[in-house]
């Protein structure tokens, strides 16, 4: 489980738009990075945005209940987790870091994908089916993944910034996504706080084009409702603003800049809600809203 001294992980990855150094003695973290980040550039000399370490937990219970700690720039924002969750902890910790560090971006909880230069934003309310839909759009309809969890809005350009990382899947969605053509699903982590968790790798295309931002064009609130049929309904801009505000990690902290950036974003997008009972229904509704096949 713990790597020998000579193989201890110390790598620096360009995980656009950031450079992240990762150090860890855990084999699971090394395997996670080799599986999901194999296409990322490894810059030799670069400014490191986030210096991440996943280390064994401290204290006496390391002997009967080993734990993993997440550190970023020597700060320790979380309580430790069971050691077998070290790899998902890397993803959660990096999400937290991007959302909470003040870097001039407005960050909110949503999946973002692009086709022909235009981006669709799928805000993430729990149970809405955002991640499954996001994976389906990538693998079944050829959308480029910008992010499955974090919409990163640049207030200066009004563009959405790509942060292509593994799509985070929970419970039943793991098997559904696993059957999509070209999907690569990694290790399953049982009994996490979110149930069973696994990740699906982003396409190589998403990594290669990560430096290209996308223009926000559609804002679609997904609602998974099994057995209810499927329908599209328009959402007013005011309502969309309030809903996005709820999903924002740092809009309040961004003050006037954040407020204006979200206003501009809403001025440029069509807002809809889609309700669906199956992935194929959802894809059809997205095609209807975006006029893209």
């Amino acid at each position: 489980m713990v790597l020998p001294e000579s193989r201890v992980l110390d790598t620096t990855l360009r995980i656009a738009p950031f450079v992240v150094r990762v150090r860890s003695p855990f084999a699971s973290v090394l395997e996670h990075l080799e599986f999901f980040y194999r296409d990322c550039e490894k810059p030799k000399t670069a400014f490191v945005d986030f210096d991440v370490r996943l280390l064994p937990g401290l204290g006496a219970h390391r002997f009967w209940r080993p734990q993993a700690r997440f550190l970023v720039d020597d700060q320790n924002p979380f309580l430790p987790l069971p050691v077998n969750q070290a790899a998902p902890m890397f993803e959660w910790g990096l999400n937290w870091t991007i959302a909470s560090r003040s870097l001039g971006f407005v960050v909110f909880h949503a999946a973002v994908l692009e086709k022909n230069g235009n981006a669709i934003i799928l805000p993430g309310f729990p149970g809405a089916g955002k991640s499954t839909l996001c994976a389906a759009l990538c693998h079944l309809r050829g959308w480029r993944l910008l992010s499955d969890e974090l919409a990163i809005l640049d207030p200066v350009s009004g563009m959405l910034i790509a942060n292509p990382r593994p799509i985070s899947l929970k419970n039943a969605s793991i098997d559904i996504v696993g059957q999509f053509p070209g999907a690569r699903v990694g290790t399953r982590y049982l009994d996490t706080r979110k149930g069973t968790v696994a990740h699906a790798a982003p396409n190589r295309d998403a990594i290669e084009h990560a430096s290209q931002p996308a223009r926000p064009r559609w804002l679609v609130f997904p609602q998974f409702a099994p057995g209810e049929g499927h329908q599209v309904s328009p959402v007013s801009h005011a309502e969309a603003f309030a809903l996005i505000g709820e999903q924002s990690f740092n809009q309040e902290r961004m003050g006037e800049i954040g407020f204006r950036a979200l206003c501009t974003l809403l001025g440029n997008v069509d807002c809809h809600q889609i309700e669906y009972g199956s992935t194929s229904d959802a894809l059809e509704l997205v095609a209807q809203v975006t006029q893209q096949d």
Partner: protein
Amino acid sequence: MNRASLLDLLKHPQRTTALSPSGWTEFIATARNANLLGKLAQRLHEAGVAVPAAPLRHLEGARLLSERQHHSVAWEAQCIDATLAQTDEPVVLLKGAAYVLGRKAAGVGRLFGDVDVLVPPGSLGKIEIRLMAGGWTQMKSEAYDQRYYREWMHELPPMIHVRRGTVIDVHHTILPLTARSHPDADAIIAHSIPLPGYRSLRIPCDEDLIIHSMCHLAHEGELHNALRDLDDINSLLSEHADSPDFWGQLGDRAEHHDLAAPVALCLMLARQFFDSPVPESLVLRLAGADSAAIQRLARLYDAAIAPNPEGQPPLRSLAAQLLIYIRSHWLRMPPRLLVQHLSRKAWQRLSLASGASPKNEQGA
């Protein structure tokens, strides 16, 4: 990055142009951990230094955050003023809020969280009730914590506003009632200056502002913010460096507050770390017969204040940090009470660690 390099770049922002990408990485991480990133960003911005795009994102982010916090603290001050004006009691802002609203150089780019205020001891009950009516509520509900704050410390337990989530610390003196020194809080209030545009809010006169900052640093057991605090002190001192009467008045005020030794210590540290223009005669006057002991203490702080983003500071720093931690409690509580308090806290920590399930805040 070591302390000397960090301080050198803080004093001479232009020298950052020589930094390599990995030099920038260390510099930004060290400054962030020392809680100096906002101040640093503001200084680089004002000096017009060309910063590479990648670190600039972190600096501009910190600068925007500090501007945003300064807007928020101004609004919070309005809310506190509106809530407490009816009590007709003076409410003196302390520390960060005082620097920002008093437009001190120490406030520029400074990041902070809570608002600290000093009020007359007799008004505490009135003020607590007004705050509760205005939407603030107690954060610490345990009886022991309540007693710890009210009986032994120098403040009401911190109160949080139910809608805004902002925190106010209401003090009635500037050191615990159990502490060895007894600063004259009444005099701080009596000499405070009204803040234009507010009904009840005031800030301490400059000498008291500085002495309070020093008193806080010299009695604080944890040194995460020590460099930031010394930078505050240096900025406050530098504003008056050229006025001939200032240093004498600062000395008089320190003696009046029974804080000659802590002030002497902080003057030594400010001079040593930031080249503050402190006259030797003032240090000698305040240190008096304790001069050797205070110099030893200054060496201890010198060893303990070691910003280090790579985790483990050297053993010498750890030992110094531990001594300062113990000393800070020693200064604040008589020994019997201290033993009671620390064992009580250790017991709480132990039962928390073995019993409760971890509460994870992993977010998305």
